[in-house]
C-alpha cells in the first residue's frame, strides 16, 4: 500500500488529507496521472512530489510502504 498525503487546495478539493492506494509500484509521473484521472486532481500537474519527505523526480519509483506527499507550489514565509 502507498499512502498519499494531500495539502492545501488538493486537500480541500477531496476533503481528505490522506489517500491509501492499494498499489505495489508506480512512478511519480504515473501516480500524478492516476490522481488526475481517478480523483479529478487537475492541479496535480503543477505540484511536486515528495517520497518519504524528500523531493522526487518524475521518473522515480514509488514502492509499497512509501509515504508520498503531493506538494502544490509552496507559499510559506
Amino acid at each position, binding site marked *: 500500500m502507498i499512502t498519499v498525503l494531500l495539502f*492545501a487546495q488538493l486537500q480541500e478539493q477531496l476533503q481528505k488529507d490522506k489517500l491509501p492506494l492499494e498499489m505495489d509500484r508506480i512512478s511519480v509521473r504515473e501516480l500524478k496521472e492516476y490522481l488526475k484521472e481517478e480523483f479529478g486532481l487537475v492541479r496535480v500537474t503543477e505540484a511536486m512530489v515528495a517520497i518519504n519527505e524528500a523531493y522526487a523526480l518524475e521518473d522515480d519509483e514509488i514502492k509499497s510502504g512509501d509515504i508520498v506527499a503531493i506538494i502544490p507550489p509552496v507559499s510559506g514565509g
Partner: protein
Amino acid sequence: MKLFEIVTEPINTNELIQKVEKREAGAITTFIGTVREFTNGKRTVYLEYQAYVPMAEKMLAQIGEEITSKWENAIVAITHRIGSLDIGEAAVVIAVSSPHRKAAYEANEYAIERIKQIVPIWKKEIWEDGQEWIGDQLEKTSYQNGLPKMEKE
C-alpha cells in the same frame, strides 16, 4: 534547543536571537515576516498556514546547512508558525549570527528566499468576500518544469 521548527503558537523573536548568540558573533540579523493587511490592494482578514511538518522542518534544516557551507561561522535559527494568524502577527522569524555583518544580512535574505522555494508550507488568504490558497497564481514559483532548484546559482 531546536534551531529549525514549525510551531502553532506565537513566535518569540528573543528566543531565536538567543539560539544564535555567541561570543564570536559581532552581528545578529533577524527577519520577521508578518501578516500584512493589504496585498495587491485587497484587504486580508487573516491568514491560514498549513505545513507538511516533518518535511518542512527537514527543509529548514537543509537551508541551515546550505548557509553554513556558503557563509563560514554563520549560525541560523528559523521558526515558522502555522494555523490562523491575525494581521501583524509573525509567520516566520529567521535569526542569523556571524562574526561580520555582511554575511549576517546576506545569509538571512538567502534563508527567506529559500523558504519560499523549497519548504512545504502553504498560505491561505482569507478576505471579506472569499479565500484562496496562495501558490503559482500570485507568486512566481512554478514546479511545472521540474524540481525546485536545490541550490541558488
